[in-house]
């Protein structure tokens, strides 16, 4: 009985995840297809939807949440994000500055 309950709950999380992922994807495509916003804003919207999409995937499919059991994984993900941002952001700043001074 208990097992069936857990199964139901899992199925529900996956369903929520699937539907939200689908909605987010469609929203992004719709923004571009139906010209719902000026181009600059559209890029921002697509980017923001992409970020939300990442969170949805982590939460519903990879089971990363704020529970204690997932804390290690969450820390690793946040750390990876930090390092990636440092490396990519730093590279962009440095190369843009060099480019600017070479012009």
């Amino acid at each position: 009985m208990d097992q069936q309950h857990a199964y139901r709950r899992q199925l529900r999380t996956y369903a929520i995840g699937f539907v939200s992922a689908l909605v987010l994807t469609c929203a992004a495509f719709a923004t571009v297809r139906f010209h719902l916003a000026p181009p600059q804003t559209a890029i921002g919207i697509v980017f923001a939807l992409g970020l939300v999409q990442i969170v949805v995937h982590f939460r519903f499919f990879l089971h990363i949440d704020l529970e204690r059991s997932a804390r290690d994984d969450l820390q690793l993900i946040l750390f990876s994000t930090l390092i990636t941002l440092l490396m990519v952001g730093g590279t962009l700043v440095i190369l843009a500055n060099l480019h600017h001074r070479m012009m």
Partner: protein
Amino acid sequence: MVHGAWFWLLGRIDLDSFAFVRAWREPSLDRLIAAGAAAMVVLGAIAAFAIITRMRKWRYLWENWFTSLDHKKIGILYIALSGVMLTRAVIEAVLMRMQQAVAVNQPGIVKPEHFGELFSTHGSIMIFFMAMPFLIGLINYVMPLQIGARDVAFPLLNSVSLWMTVGGAVLMMASLVIGKFSTGGWSGYPPYTEMAFNSGVGPDYWIWAVTLSSLGTMMTGINFAVTIYKSRAPGMHLFRMPLFCWTSLCVSILMIFAMPPLTVATALLALDRYLDFHFFTNDLGGNMMNYANLFWLFGHPEVYILILPAFGVYSEVISTFSSKRLYGYRSLVYATMAIAVLSFTVWLHHFFTMGQNADINAFFGVATMTIGIPTGVKVYDWILTMYRGRVRFTVPMLFSIAFIVTFVIGGMSGIMLAVPPLDYVVHNTLFLVAHFHNMLIPGLLYGMIAGYQFWFPKAFGFRLDERWGRIAFGCWVSGFYLAFMPLYVLGAMGMPRRMAGVFQSEYLPWLLVAAVGGFLVLAGLVALFVQLWVSIRRREEASVPVGDPWDARSLEWGIAAPPPEYNFAHIPDIETRDPFYAAKEHGTAYDPPRHYDDIEMPKNSKVGPLLGIAGAACAFGLVWYIWWLAAAAFVAIWGVVIARSFVRDIYKTIPAAEVAREHQRWLSQVAAARGIPRELETTPANQGLAEGAAA
């Protein structure tokens, strides 16, 4: 140049590619030295082959070592590789010191081109094929024992990493015999290393050797991080781990993030060279500054990959030989983490002079100085660990103390270099060379030597000779000061690095002192080998089968020396930090377990050596444009990987009865041994049992 069928078969190789032929055609001193080095490689290989064949040890080596997935054996092989490469790179260093001492106002013993190869191979080997294998080997051996695991998380991946590194090392050695190595330094900056300026095989050798090793290292990083996260013994919380495990964890994470930028940089450079791309070329939109950026995105975390494991070793050694708990354990852990994160924020200080504006330089300068804070915390923690301890001046402890003093000096010159205006002045001079040797020799090599001396009895069951260890220590430390302190002066006087000769007579006295230092360092290396030889000959009287020669604190000392393949007859439950020391105090360290279980261990696998051979062959084919070889080896690599995925029978079971028999034999050795006080730990009375431990 070769044409037609020859090219198809042998690519760019012709007679002039061989160091011997070049020396035969024009027997100058320079070429004879090159041929001599090549001869050492060839004769060394032949001698090793002959000795193994004569002793009929091939089968033994293949079955017990090369195909083994045991983390302890893989660790030992890593360190053996490191020893071979260290020897070559130290000899090169001495040659360079001699050259600079001789070549003041006159041609030296080697030509500038050859000198360029020397500093390039010296740097590349010391970083990728000496330091990395040494620290990976040490972590491989010690870390699973310290966290109470039977092996690393991915034993096969471990073997693959080892053999890819060996493949890269073989390529480095091959470059001595066939062809010439890069003259572009260990960092291989384009556009100098592009086809337009360097169409020979040198940069290709560098690219593929480094690529092989960096791939292996990244996989090692994944392996170690997963091991520490997933394979700890029950009760071994992260904050109960010995500090060496903490530094290993941070190092593995650094490896995972820092190696890919290097692989990308070398891959893009390879695309430029092989397929006429323009990532880093002078013209057609290439941007060589991005190479410097990518390279140091790897290069700076790399510095901490090199130094943190040594910090871990020092923490273990100093606390053990001071008979004290490590002072400020938590602060050391947090300092390690802080260093690991900060190491990703400072890479620009390697190219302050490349032309970005002063604000950016200032930001990275400040970030660089910030790293001095957690490092300073560590230095104080180590000093306070010794404070009021019963300090014993054994060889590992001597190296640790030499490290503290020397490293602080190097750190201070680092703070100076972190100031961009000052960096502009001494940039590209010997001051910089002095600084990074001043960090890496105490901060890496002394630590690795200390770790080797410290854990050797655990790995082989006998102690290393104390007297020769002290001689080695004296040579290394005095050699270091003589060889590198003059370089600070020379750098401040304006002598550029990487010079094959100079015309300033006032440099001469300092260069002579540095050359003497170089010879002393070589003597230190020889003393280490003599120590090993002497110790093997006297292994009976120095044997410590019980396994705890230093009255140490962490789990690995509570098992036999050498440990059984499965490490622990029974995985211990951990209730405290320093669990073995606590057990000794409670008199429960050598209690037999209530029951023995069957133990499942990974079976041997040929995959590692096969991938190493295929990887080296592929790289060699690419270097020389032997396309059929490169293609065949590439197919072979994936063939092996696919074939392995069909192998289902990958575990063997060691029956409980056998575990019990081995364990009880060891327990009877424990019962027969006499516990000794610390005054006797360097005498034959030491059988590896501490006084009062078995009460």
